[in-house]
């Protein structure tokens, strides 16, 4: 059986992990490579690095992080944040990233999704979608620039379009549940998994392990992304997998 994936997300600023990982007995909990290595030992299925520096000179710092990670950690990882051009994508993939995630750039220039998936293969092009519910409806709107700018795009129409353009996976973040710790956005996630025949990573709102189970069982998410519940040591990945397994979900252990 294909296992459901648990993916810790690391926010990286100028080559350092922020929203620090406080519980771990690491020499340097701000070092993305050391954390990646720790999570690999914990049976994390993949990793996401989100570069929140968003300045041009930061790119080279991120490429260095990518290089060092790929030399030491032998599980797949995705890099997102500030990737705008084919050249950006090429540099990350050559550095050793397995996938890149495109967010604002995909909205501003949908051809980037088509061109990059043709050039590098759909398997490495993740489209990240930040979604917010339109009040009083059962519809969601796509936001860009870190959730600051509404685009007028309907989330369901958008994910169908990026699939046609060649995206290989959707990283779906609910702006309504993100940071609440009240659980993932199940109606949103369900609407997306029903609309497209692509793997979908649910993100935003994990506060406990039951939330992981709920979004997998009720919304058919293929993977769950989480940050704080793992970084602050509330739960280990191993515990999370045990919990999923006890709830009849197949996981790699």
């Amino acid at each position, binding site marked *: *059986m*294909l*296992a*459901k*994936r648990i993916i810790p997300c690391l926010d990286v600023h100028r080559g350092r992990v922020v929203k620090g990982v406080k519980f771990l007995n690491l020499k340097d909990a701000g070092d993305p490579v050391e954390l990646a290595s720790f999570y*690999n030992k914990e*049976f994390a*299925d993949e990793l996401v690095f989100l570069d929140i520096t968003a300045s041009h000179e930061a790119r080279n710092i991120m490429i260095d992080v990518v290089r060092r990670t*790929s*030399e030491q950690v*032998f*599980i*797949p990882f995705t890099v997102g944040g500030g990737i705008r051009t084919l050249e950006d994508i090429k540099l990350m*993939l*050559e*550095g*050793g990233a*397995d996938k890149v995630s495109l967010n604002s750039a995909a909205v501003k220039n949908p051809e980037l999704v088509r061109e990059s998936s043709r050039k*590098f*293969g*759909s*398997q*490495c092009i993740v489209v990240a979608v930040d979604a917010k519910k339109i009040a009083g409806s059962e519809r969601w709107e796509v936001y860009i620039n870190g959730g600051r700018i509404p685009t007028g795009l309907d989330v369901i129409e958008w994910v169908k379009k990026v699939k046609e353009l060649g995206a*290989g*996976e959707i990283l779906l973040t609910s702006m309504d549940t993100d940071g609440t710790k009240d659980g993932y956005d199940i109606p949103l996630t369900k609407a997306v998994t029903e609309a497209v*025949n*692509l*793997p979908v990573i649910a993100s935003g709102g994990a506060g406990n392990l039951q939330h992981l189970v709920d979004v997998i069982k009720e919304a058919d998410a*293929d*993977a769950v992304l989480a940050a704080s519940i793992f970084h602050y040591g509330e739960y280990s990945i191993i515990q999370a997998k045990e919990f999923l397994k006890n709830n009849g979900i197949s996981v*790699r252990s």
Partner: protein
Amino acid sequence: MIAIINYGMGNLRSVQKAIEKVGGETIITSDPEVIRKADKVVLPGVGAFFDAIENLKSNNLVEVIKETIDSGKPFLGICLGLHLLFTESEEDGLHKGLDILKGRVVRFSDEVKVPHMGWNQIEIKNDNLILENIPDNSYFYFVHSYYPVPEDKDVIATTTDYGMEFASSVSRDNIFATQFHPEKSSDLGLKILKNFVSKL
């Protein structure tokens, strides 16, 4: 020395680093002479089948791959490197492969999510040295939309279930090829590479 064939299909760095991690000496090369001199050869790759076969031809790599396989040197294909060994592939129209193994590479049906992405289990059908100390039902990392259907079922080393059972690795004599990515499959993936480096 282990030659990792570079034919412009995807990044080979992860494969190289993983083999080095388990003690293999590697060289990434597209030079047929370097490949001829190597003790073992790896054919990795991600991307489209047709581009890949065209790149192998234009870099004069087809002959040396066939020679390597005939010579009995250990040969490891990964993902697209497995697909290329087969007679033909349905990816973007029907295209001829290297025809070293008889069979066709076909697409998953739309009843499952495509690509098949993530960690899935292997069931061992034909044990061999490269699978030594790999427990049955172990998880490996997959990412692909097409899979091989060998004519000769005896070449199937492992199968994996994704809506149906498919050949997730094949082996024959000195050839071993995986649909999954050992270089991305954590400790068990490294063990497979270590077997390739030290047992063959």
